[in-house]
């Protein structure tokens, strides 16, 4: 199934990160156009795909993850330890028939993203 999905994980706690706002944008010429804002569910995923298969086109896409609030509100987190800063992941769909699962794993001091499945 084509399209884009994501999965946000708190690797500090070994749990999905729920309640994280994600702004999904597409590159329109030179500017990033916001398509939608969603919030991760209890499993750290989104209830609907980020981008539906029917909307998948070759192009540049961006996921902006609002983790600052999540870490600040997380009990037992020292603000001084928060090094990562509302990460933005930019990637291309090169084949609209393929699915692009782009997880985001983070802790206050580390970040990982990759093309998953």
């Amino acid at each position, binding site marked *: 199934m084509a399209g884009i999905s994501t999965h946000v994980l708190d690797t500090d706690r070994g749990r999905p990160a729920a309640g994280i706002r994600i702004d999904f944008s597409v590159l329109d010429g030179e500017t990033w156009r916001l398509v939608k804002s969603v919030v991760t569910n209890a499993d750290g995923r989104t209830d609907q795909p980020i981008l539906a298969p029917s909307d998948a086109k070759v192009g*540049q896409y961006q996921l902006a993850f609002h983790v600052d609030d999540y870490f600040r509100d997380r009990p037992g987190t020292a603000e001084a330890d928060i090094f990562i800063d509302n990460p933005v992941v930019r990637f291309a769909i090169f084949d609209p028939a393929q699915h692009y699962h782009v997880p985001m794993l983070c802790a206050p001091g*580390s970040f990982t993203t990759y093309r998953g499945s």
Partner: protein
Amino acid sequence: MATASGGVLAQAGPAPSTASDKPAPLTSAPVSQAGLGPRLTLHAIDNFHGTPAAGMVCDLAWREGDSLTPIKTVTTGANGRPAEPLLTDAALRPGHYELLLHVGAYFAARGVSLPSPNFLDRVPIRFRIRDAGQRHHLPVLFTPWGYSYYRGS
């Protein structure tokens, strides 16, 4: 190799050439920055080839919301590090930063066959400096299909 603040990096082997786009042979010991002054340093590691990422262009900017103010552009040397720390002492201010890594161009220069457009092209790394009196070391590990970064030492 002496640094501007007078400390010595615990690294054997010749000083890296800033113009080099060939990674150094992995024959020297890792670098320790213990005892050095406040700074922001970068180490780019190519996890696809298993080498330091030599010859990669990186743009450092100060970030305020979505607005970026360019600070400098550097190219990594043979050891995957720019010749100098990105920022030291008074130049390291608390705030939000973005380092843009030219990953697509890096792999293209290495002749790695990738789709067009590639999954990753220019990779933005956003981080926050809270205490400008500390050393902030930023290792970035990447392949054409993903990347990680963390506050190291």
